[in-house]
């Protein structure tokens, strides 16, 4: 398919496209997975395909395929779809003038060269790590490595090709005696710098510590969200309102709020496609716009929404490099890059007299993405007493509002973690409503 990308651009012009874009993506991944403490399977996956955007009279058509013999058909359908649609007055044009920054740390030759035996060893390290803490068993998990290649071409002269690698480990554990409790841990990186053994160990320790949870009274209290928990809330309840598309369509709780105070002044938030070795780092976004660092919240004040080239054209601003695609099957839409939560760090648990520490949450995807309201179940929660984690809490519901929450942040830990693209420390929020 790679060899056909340039040809496809020509086909689109020939079929009558005034502007056209070819998005080629290939991915090769190898995963070694275990169930309980035994390796269960190895998966090798090759995925490769082309997505075509064709523009006729300010209207866009899109088609995609992974089959060389369907490519010409797909290109023609993309053009035909564009012809069906009415002119879109908000369409400005495909990106042009790509001058790209240099990014580093996103491709590691060693990841690409890993032999199956080594992949198996990393998966086994996850399992071995869980065994260091007696009384727990892994339930499932695995090691994965991937190598991706992406080529974007358009009729405005954009041509950008990038290669990247990724490795990840995931482990879910359960206690074997007494009350049942579970925990998980995971990590993802561009290179082989993950300590898989430590990952298994930390999941096991957390499951064990969570055993024999107590019931607590409904109350308003300080809650410290671990990066896993906080990033879930950010992604599901805050990020959708920063998406310029939602703002323009009246589906954002942050509409008309630029330059307003959104959060306490100690908080800043950056969206950054350039950081070294970031999971969302690349020279360009998924439509060929150069990546950049965008200040989203500066000292508590909302500075901008996030734009892809279409929403930027509609608003008369520059794209922030947030054109994003899940795969070659979808046209671009606004998505987060590396999303960095910045708040002065302290030993936040030690500074907390009483409250709740929450490691993970379930149900964040049920949040109201417009109003920011959420109601989630806490996992691996602990009471905090005199600056230390005290007792595990069996069952706990936390409800609140993402925008209100930003105004009530009172602390952050030193434990910054890359949860996929979201980079955040543990965050303490006052006056959260919890029901035990």
């Amino acid at each position: 398919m790679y060899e056909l990308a340039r040809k496809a651009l020509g086909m689109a012009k020939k079929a009558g496209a005034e502007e056209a874009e070819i998005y080629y993506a290939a991915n090769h991944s190898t995963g070694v997975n275990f169930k309980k403490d035994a390796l269960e399977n190895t998966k090798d996956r090759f995925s490769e395909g082309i997505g075509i955007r064709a523009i006729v009279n300010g209207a866009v058509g899109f088609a995609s395929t992974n089959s060389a013999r369907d490519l010409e058909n797909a290109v023609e359908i993309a053009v035909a779809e564009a012809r069906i649609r009415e002119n879109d007055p908000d369409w400005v044009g495909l990106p042009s003038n790509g001058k790209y920054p240099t990014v580093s740390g996103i491709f590691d030759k060693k990841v690409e060269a890993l032999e199956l035996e080594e992949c198996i060893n990393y998966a086994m390290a996850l399992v071995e790590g869980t065994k260091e803490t007696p009384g727990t068993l892994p339930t499932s998990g695995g090691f994965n490595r991937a190598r991706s290649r992406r080529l974007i071409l358009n009729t405005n002269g954009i041509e950008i090709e990038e290669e990247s690698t990724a490795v990840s480990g995931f482990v879910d554990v359960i206690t074997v005696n007494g009350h049942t409790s579970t925990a998980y841990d995971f990590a993802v990186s561009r290179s082989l710098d993950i300590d898989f053994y430590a990952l298994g160990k930390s999941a096991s320790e957390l499951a064990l510590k969570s055993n024999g949870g107590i019931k607590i009274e409904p109350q308003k209290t300080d809650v410290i969200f671990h990066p896993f928990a906080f990033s879930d809330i950010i992604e599901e309840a805050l990020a959708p309102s920063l998406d310029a598309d939602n703002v323009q369509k009246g589906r954002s709780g942050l509409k008309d709020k630029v330059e307003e105070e959104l959060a306490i002044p100690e908080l800043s938030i950056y969206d950054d496609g350039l950081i070294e070795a970031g999971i969302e780092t690349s020279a360009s976004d998924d439509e060929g716009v150069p990546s950049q660092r965008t200040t989203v919240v500066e000292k508590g004040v909302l500075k901008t929404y996030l734009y892809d080239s279409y929403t930027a054209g509609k608003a008369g601003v520059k794209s922030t490099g947030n054109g994003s695609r899940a795969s070659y099957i979808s046209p671009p839409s606004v998505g987060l890059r590396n999303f960095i939560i910045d708040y002065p760090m302290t030993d936040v648990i030690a500074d907390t007299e009483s409250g709740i520490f929450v490691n993970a949450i379930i149900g964040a995807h049920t949040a109201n993405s417009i109003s920011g309201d959420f109601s989630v179940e806490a996992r691996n929660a602990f009471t905090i007493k005199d600056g230390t984690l005290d007792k595990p809490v069996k069952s706990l519901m936390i409800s609140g509002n993402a925008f209100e929450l930003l105004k009530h942040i009172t602390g952050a830990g030193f434990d910054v973690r890359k949860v996929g693209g979201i980079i955040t420390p543990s965050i303490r929020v006052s006056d959260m409503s919890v029901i035990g």
Partner: protein
Amino acid sequence: MTGIMQDIKFYDCRVIEGSSTSIVLDNGKIEEISRNFSRGAGIRALCVGSWGYTAVEGEIDLKKGVEAASKLAFSMNANTPKEDVELAAINSPEIKNLPEIRIDPRDVAIEEKVDLLKGIGASAKVEGVHSTKVMYLESEFKIEYRSSDGIECAYELLNVGFAVSAVASENGLYQAGRESRFGYGYELFEKENVLELATTAGNTAVALLKAKTPKGGEMPVLLDQELAGVFAHEAVGHASEADLVLEGDSILENKIGEQIASPLITIIDDPTLHEFGYYPFDAEGSQSKRTEIIRDGVLNSYLHSRETAAKLGGTPGNCRAQGYSMPVVRMSNTFIDNGNAKFEEMLEEVRDGMYLIGSRGGQVNTGEGIFQFNAEKGYLIRNGELTELVRDVSLSGKTLEILNHVSLVGNDLKMTAGRCGKAGQLVPVSDGSPHLAISKALVGGA
């Protein structure tokens, strides 16, 4: 290679070819028309106790694919040998009872589809609604299955459906209403009154603006068919998936034959129904069949693949995959069977509590048997009567406690189509239930 193949005791291939169309209409304007054409295959090979899996997109050389998967299985077994995996024996499936399609959506012009969506969008835009979104999805695919056991079978299926959402806002407050229907054949749009559904979505969004957020706490509740269906699927169905049971990640482990629920409760998984989770055979070529997970409150059966059926004893038929992914144990059409209570009777039973309606999704921890679901909306029940509308309400608790606290089961079973995620794969499913009265549950609110 010959050396390796001697140790491969089983392999199978699924070749899938298909195309899909999606149209997105936003505020009456076409936002996206996209088509996709795809072909690919997923190939499994088993060496003693290790599985190798290869997925390939594009042009497929099956022989090479089988060799690649076999090599993975072989080297894994060489590195970390495991106990032999047995597979429950199956016969070639009978392909029967495929959903009949009266109007092939591919025969309907795209302009007509766009007009239909515009009508739906306009119907959702009732007074107070300021934005609407309508999505149309159509997909057709052909699956060919063959295995080293000599099973060869194939079928084609065509899905269509739509989803509409409406957003109303007032004083910086936003509320949404959603409706969707999925099925087989374009006649879906004749059978269902889609314009009325769209208006319902719009009205819900507007009504929720005025709704209060109630105080949470423990109380008796009445669940509507959709929310009770989500409970059946998420809390009970997932825990009955035999792979999770074998992993030690299910609250239902070692409970077959035990009374785990109120005797009023029967929960069934049935892929032969022409609901959204229909299939004639699963991703291992096993004939689809109805399974009673819980019968009269007694845990009766888990859901099985060939591997889990051989390990735990049971019948395969619930192994499914999204596209070229490796098949895992999944549900199909999962529902709580009808009881005989009338709605009014159930209100009277709950007396003072909450009526929870619809679902904005939920999650469950199958190992600990705890869950959390957010309702779309609710009504307070006072003195056995529905009173004011409430929003931002959720239901959480322990699966087994809720199953035992069911005090009445309605007679108005209704199914809802959706997509279920597990192991990073989405598959079409449906779930449903009649209304359920529950004597005690934890409701989350303000």
